[in-house]
């Protein structure tokens, strides 16, 4: 089977890579954590401002590949305004999507824009890139202090 690069690098991913949303620090963040992928040396800092169980602001900074950068960008855009419970549910759905079998048919509709990462399943080496921001997000909400690592 021949493969087209757009199956991995969908337009949304390329767009968020080039123009990452919420690419900044949050000075009064209630949660801040670093995510690290030792395999490629990528690091990202995730910031959240949570008030009364609602994620009022979300942002990130750092270096990474197009997959991890766009995943972080889409994460911040997705969770902003959601309750912590809603956001955790999205994390769980995203996790299931990324780690599901390539032939499985996940509920792409429920994932909204995040569905663009479905193609990553074809490239097991890149799954960690897509999931790192989400693991960092999840750990930050648990008030973990140590950097999250993919390894």
């Amino acid at each position, binding site marked *: 089977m021949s493969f087209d*690069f757009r199956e991995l690098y969908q337009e949304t991913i390329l767009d968020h890579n080039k123009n990452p949303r919420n690419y900044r620090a949050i000075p009064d963040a209630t949660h801040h954590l670093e995510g690290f992928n030792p395999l*490629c040396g990528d*690091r990202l800092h995730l910031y959240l401002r949570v008030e009364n169980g609602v994620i009022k602001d979300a942002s990130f900074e750092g270096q990474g590949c197009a997959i991890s950068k766009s995943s972080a960008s889409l994460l911040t855009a997705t969770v902003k305004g959601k309750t912590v419970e809603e956001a955790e549910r999205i994390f769980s759905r995203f996790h299931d999507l990324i780690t599901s079998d390539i032939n499985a048919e996940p509920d792409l509709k429920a994932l909204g824009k995040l569905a663009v990462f479905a193609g990553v399943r074809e*490239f097991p*080496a890149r799954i960690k890139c897509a999931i790192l921001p989400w693991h960092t997000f999840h750990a930050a909400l648990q008030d973990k202090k140590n950097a999250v690592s993919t390894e």
Partner: protein
Amino acid sequence: MSLVVDIPRIISDMPRTELFDVDLIRKDFPILGTLIRGKPLVYLDNSATSQKPASVIDTLTRYYGFENSNIHRGVHYLSMQATEAYEEARSKVKEFINAPSEKEIIFTRGTTEGINLVARSYGRHHIQYGDEILISAMEHHSNIVPWQLTAEERGAVLKIIPMDENGELIMEEFERLLTDRVKMVAVVHVSNSLGTVNPVKKIVRMAHEKNIPVLVDGAQAVPHGAVDVQDLDCDFYAFSGHKMYAPTGVGVLYGKTQWLESLPPYQGGGDMIKSVTFEKTIYNDLPFKFEAGTPNISGGIALGAAIDYLNGIGMDKIKAYEHELLTYATSALSAIPGLKIIGTAKEKAGAISFVLDNVHPHDVGSFLDMEGIAIRTGHHCTQPVMHFFGIPATSRASLAFYNKKEEIDALDCVIRRVREVFE
């Protein structure tokens, strides 16, 4: 009759690489005929591991199909045959690197184990509190961590020979670091992430003037040109089978007899002993003293087959052809806007590392993968090299003699497309 006499003269007048029929050679490697994601495989990850010729694969199949037996212990036919084949492979290795004796050829699992063997055994015997171990700024983790472990255990200090922005060792600094406190110099022959060929012979000569032994990590050197350990005069030389067209799990440590005799064993077990009582064990002679347990017999024999294969082509021809290919690839990639080659030493072999403006190496790697082109992306087990250049990772295309200019063209073309997509 005259025709037969004439042929050698005509051939010797031709440039060497013209004798090199890469299309014919490619037929020896079954994997090179396969499709990846529907596209012909372009394998440019040879520094990670090389592909195997059919003769090596056949050797493994034949061994397990018809010759399998344990060595050095049986009186039965198969065991004697296997022992003979394994020891014959040792002789081939000895010839291949021009070692003086088979006793100095120790079979290991690979380069990493060879270096660990020396770091442990030499360290325990010859490195004391306050001593120094010198390694270079471009070492693979496998020539850093074993020495860190030894330094920690012995209370010794690890010092680093620095390099410049081209990825060449600064020899004046090396000279300055060669003090009486130094008890070992461990350097890489050819850098896996930069491609730099280090002046190993000179390094050995300088160290020996101060009676300091030198270990050379030859993992990336042995596949790319003839290595003569007597000419280099190094004390230890470690390399891997799988990077020189043999299977994984087998490697070689060459060591000078005087050192190997003086070092304690690395591991204890069967085969490395002459006699064992609960009170005392008499160790076996070299090289068996350093080969505890049943070794990778099939791997060793197949390493012999790989050496036969390489000798059939000729290491000089391989070196000349690969040099031509590396020059071609360097000039092609250099012409790509926004591409920067990392590692621009005057003398290079095997690998070209590069970074591309605004495109992460992982994206370059995945994009190439979709076109059936295999390269390595990441830190290449040389994180200090990445720190030195201030980058998290590079993309690395690494060559073998079965690669073609057309494959470099394909690489060139796809990298240019990557740039457009990420523009």
